[in-house]
């Protein structure tokens, strides 16, 4: 069995489980929409303020939703010791990581695709012309965030305070990605192109580093 087929098997299983329960997606969306509503009511921002604080608010909503999804990612694996069952098979540990990461990436991107129109609606923004570049930033930011998040979700799933432990471990490490994504989003909303290319390069670099290192480290975090 090829590496990619193993990876695909894990991805399909996670997608099927989420389709059946809709636990992660409903929690992610509900929480992120609440975040957007609260910020909207708290600041009641005009257009000028939206262009300053909007990118930060958007990525707060994305990352909070992402953490909820990541916490759920290994919950099903720990029910009945399923992760042990997977570890008993001859599958490459990197394949397990990449399958779980791809599933998390899909969940988070779907949530972001639903949240973007809400963001535009609450903050009175028209995103039509900026949408392709904004989607690219969302993709690059989410790849880096979920790459580290999947690794740390596996670490925190074995701890007693897993819901608290994941954000404590995750946010300090993903600061570069989040800052890069917020800065890029700010430039896009302000129709500025200077510096955007460099920020996108930085995001790509972080994504590669986080994805490769997490794949290599996954075997060690699974050890009892």
């Amino acid at each position, binding site marked *: *069995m090829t590496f990619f*087929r*193993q990876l695909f*098997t894990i991805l399909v*299983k996670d997608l*099927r*489980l989420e389709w*059946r*329960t809709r636990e992660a997606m409903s929690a992610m969306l509900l929480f992120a929409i609440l975040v957007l509503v609260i910020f909207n009511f708290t600041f009641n921002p005009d257009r000028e303020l939206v262009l300053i604080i909007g990118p930060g608010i958007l990525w707060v909503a994305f990352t909070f939703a992402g953490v909820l999804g990541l916490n759920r990612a290994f919950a*099903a694996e720990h*029910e*009945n*010791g*399923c992760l*042990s*069952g*997977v*570890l*008993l*098979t*001859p*599958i*490459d540990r990197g394949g397990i990581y990449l399958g779980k990461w791809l599933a998390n990436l899909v969940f988070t991107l779907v949530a972001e695709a639903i949240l973007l129109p809400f963001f535009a609606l609450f903050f009175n923004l028209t995103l039509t012309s900026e949408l392709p570049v904004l989607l690219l930033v969302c993709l690059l930011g989410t790849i880096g965030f979920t790459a580290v998040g999947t690794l740390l979700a596996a670490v925190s799933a074995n701890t007693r305070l897993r819901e608290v432990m994941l954000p404590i471990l995750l946010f300090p490490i993903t600061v570069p990605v989040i800052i890069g994504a917020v800065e890029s989003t700010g430039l896009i909303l302000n129709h500025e192109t200077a510096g955007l290319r460099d920020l996108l390069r930085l995001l790509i670099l972080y994504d590669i580093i986080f994805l490769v290192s997490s794949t290599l480290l996954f075997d060690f975090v699974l*050890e*009892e």
Partner: protein
Amino acid sequence: MSGPELAPFAVEAAGVAKRFGRITALKSVDLSVRTGSVTTLFGHNGAGKTTFLRIAAGLMRSSGGHLKIAGRDSVKEAAQIRGRIGVVSHQLFLYEDLTALENLRFYGDLYGIDRPEERCHEVLEQVELTHRANSRARHFSRGMAQRLAIARAFLHRPDILLLDEPYTGLDQRAVGRLNGLIDRFREGHHTVLLTTHDHHLGFTMATDIAILRRGEVIHTSSVGDLSEAEFDALYERSLQ
């Protein structure tokens, strides 16, 4: 799945130890399980039976000692060993929101078995769950879930079965089915290492027995060497 290379021992443990911080779960386990045997590992709660089986399955690293599975080093050749072992544990390894068939297909794909659909139906029939193939594991009783876990362990035609309390939750009929499966499994020169608190079942199924006390094997013998009553007396004496 390729057949065993017929190493004389399916499991060879020499001084296997396991510590969790200051707690010693296994002091020093020396145990040789003959290829083709059914070896029952007896011992009180906390003796270290489950820990030893988890180390043998590759789910846990030992803190010391050496372990060979089918003649291969359990650490250096872990990936090659994994596909040759089937495990039934306290944990069922089943996704509750997948159906019985989906659970087996998932594991079958990870093991890379030939003709997975056919094989999944075959093992479901062996544990009498064909009629519930499309029911989610969440809706199974404990006994049915245990039967599905047993089907999962047999799915990839392993050479060595590690069974940790496999009779948990099974009714009389299911116990008979499992014993039949173990008997047929052994006929193929395969090996079973099992733990159970049911002395009668453990003794009657075994060809060899071992007693574990506080992380050490204190007795090993062939079942032919003693009667069940003699074993019961020996067990009580050895654990005092």
